[in-house]
C-alpha cells in the first residue's frame, strides 16, 4: 500500500512535534512559576508604595506652603505632553500565541493615537526591537535576552535616565506598553503612564480626609528619594507582569499545540488502520475468489 508508508511517517513526525511542544510547555510552566512568584511577592510592596505615594502627593498638593522640588514636579503638575518616552515590553522568543501580536497591536494603536512625539523609545525583547525596525523607529535603548535576575539593572537604567530627561525638559511623560498578567491563561495588553502620576478623583476625594503628614527631614528630601523608588518599583512590576504573561501565554499555546498534535495522531492512526484493514480485506477477497476459481 502506497499510502500506508506515508501515513506512518506522518504519525512519527507529528509525535516528534508533540514531544517538543510538551517539553516546551513543561519548561514554560517552570518559568511561569518563577516569574509569578516574584510578581506575587512584589505586588504587596508595589501596592503599598502606590498608596504611600498617593497620600504624600495629595498631601503636598493640598499644602501651598511646600514648594516642590524638580522630581516632585513630575508627579504634581503634569506639563502638556509634547515629547514622551515609551518603553515597549515584548518577548525574545515566539511560539507564545497572541502574546507579542497583542502588545504590538496596542503599541500601533498608541503610536497612531498619541499627539505627542515619541522622542525616546526603549524596547525590551527581540520582538519589540523587530517591531521598531519594521516601523523605521530608532530604539534608543535595546534590552534583549534579559534574564529574570537582570530586570533590576534594566529598571534602574531606564528610571534614572527618564528622571534625568524629565528634569532637563527633554520628555514630558514616561509610558510603558506591556502585557498585564491576569492569570496564566489570560493577559491584557496595557498602556501605563508611569509619570506624571494619575491621581484619579476617587482617591483624591478619599485622601483629602486624611490628616496631613509630617515629612521628615523635609518634604522635598523625602519626595526626591521616594519618587525614583516608586518609578523603579512600577517599572519592575511591569517587566515581571510581562514576563509572567509571556510564559503563561507560551504554556497555553504549547498546551493547545500538544492537544492538537494528539488529535491529529488519533485521526491519522484511524486512517492508517482503515487503509490497512482495506488492504487485508482486499487480499482475502483475492484469495477467496482465487480459491473459488
Amino acid at each position, binding site marked *: 500500500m502506497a499510502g500506508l508508508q506515508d501515513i506512518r511517517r506522518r504519525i512519527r513526525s507529528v509525535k516528534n512535534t508533540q514531544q517538543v511542544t510538551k517539553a516546551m510547555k513543561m519548561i514554560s510552566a517552570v518559568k511561569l512559576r518563577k516569574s509569578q512568584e516574584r510578581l506575587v511577592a512584589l505586588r504587596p*510592596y508595589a501596592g503599598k*508604595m502606590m498608596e504611600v505615594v498617593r497620600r504624600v502627593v495629595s498631601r503636598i498638593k493640598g499644602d501651598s506652603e511646600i514648594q516642590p522640588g524638580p522630581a516632585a514636579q513630575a508627579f504634581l503638575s503634569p506639563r502638556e505632553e509634547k515629547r514622551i518616552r515609551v518603553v515597549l515590553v515584548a518577548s525574545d522568543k515566539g511560539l507564545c500565541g497572541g502574546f507579542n501580536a497583542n502588545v504590538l497591536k496596542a503599541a500601533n494603536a498608541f503610536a497612531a493615537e498619541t499627539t505627542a512625539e515619541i522622542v525616546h523609545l526603549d524596547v525590551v525583547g527581540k520582538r519589540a526591537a523587530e517591531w521598531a525596525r519594521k516601523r523605521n523607529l530608532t530604539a534608543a535603548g535595546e534590552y534583549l535576552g534579559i534574564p529574570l535576575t537582570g530586570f533590576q539593572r534594566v529598571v534602574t537604567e531606564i528610571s534614572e535616565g527618564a528622571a534625568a530627561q524629565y528634569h532637563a525638559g527633554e520628555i514630558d511623560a514616561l509610558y510603558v506598553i506591556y502585557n498585564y498578567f491576569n492569570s496564566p491563561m489570560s493577559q491584557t495588553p496595557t498602556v501605563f503612564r508611569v509619570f506624571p502620576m494619575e491621581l484619579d478623583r476617587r482617591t483624591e476625594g478619599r485622601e483629602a480626609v486624611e490628616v496631613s503628614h509630617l515629612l521628615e527631614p523635609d518634604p522635598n*528630601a523625602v519626595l526626591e528619594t521616594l519618587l525614583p523608588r516608586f518609578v523603579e518599583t512600577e517599572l519592575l512590576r511591569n517587566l515581571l507582569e510581562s514576563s509572567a504573561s509571556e510564559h503563561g501565554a507560551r504554556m497555553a499555546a504549547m498546551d493547545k499545540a500538544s492537544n492538537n498534535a494528539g488529535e491529529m495522531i488519533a485521526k491519522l492512526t484511524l486512517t492508517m488502520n482503515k487503509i490497512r484493514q482495506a488492504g487485508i480485506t482486499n487480499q482475502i477477497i483475492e484469495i477467496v475468489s482465487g480459491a473459488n476459481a
Partner: protein
Amino acid sequence: MSQSIKLEVVTPERPVFSAEVSEVQFPTAARGYYGILPGHTPLMTEVGDGLLYYVQDGQKHWLTVFGGFAEVGPDRVTILARESETVDMIDLERVEADRQRALKLLKEAHTEHDLASAQAALDASLIRLQAAGHPAGHGF
C-alpha cells in the same frame, strides 16, 4: 484611641512582617531612631540601616531593615524596606562568612569606593549578627 499599631514590613522580594503591636522603634536615614507609640502624628520618612524593634504582648522582637521608607499613622506603621528580615531568616553561618569577607576586603581596599562598599557590607553583617543575638554583633 486605638491601643495598638498595625506594623507592616514589606520588601520587593516578600512581605516580611504584619501584625498588631504596641510599640515600634526604627532607624531613620537622617535623624537617628524613631520610637512610635499608638496615636503618633502621621509621618513619612526615609529608613536607614539598622535594627527595628517592636513590642508584642510585652515582648521585644527584632527585625533588620536596610533602607526604604516608613509611613506612620495613628494606628499603623508601614515600612517599605529595600531589604529586611526577621531573626528566623538570618543564616548565622553565612552572615559570619560575610563579615570575615568584609573585614578582609576592608584591609585590602585601596580606593575610596572599595572602602565604602566593604564598610557597608561589614555594617550589614554586624546588624544581622546583632539581631540574631550573636556576641560579635555587640561591638557594633
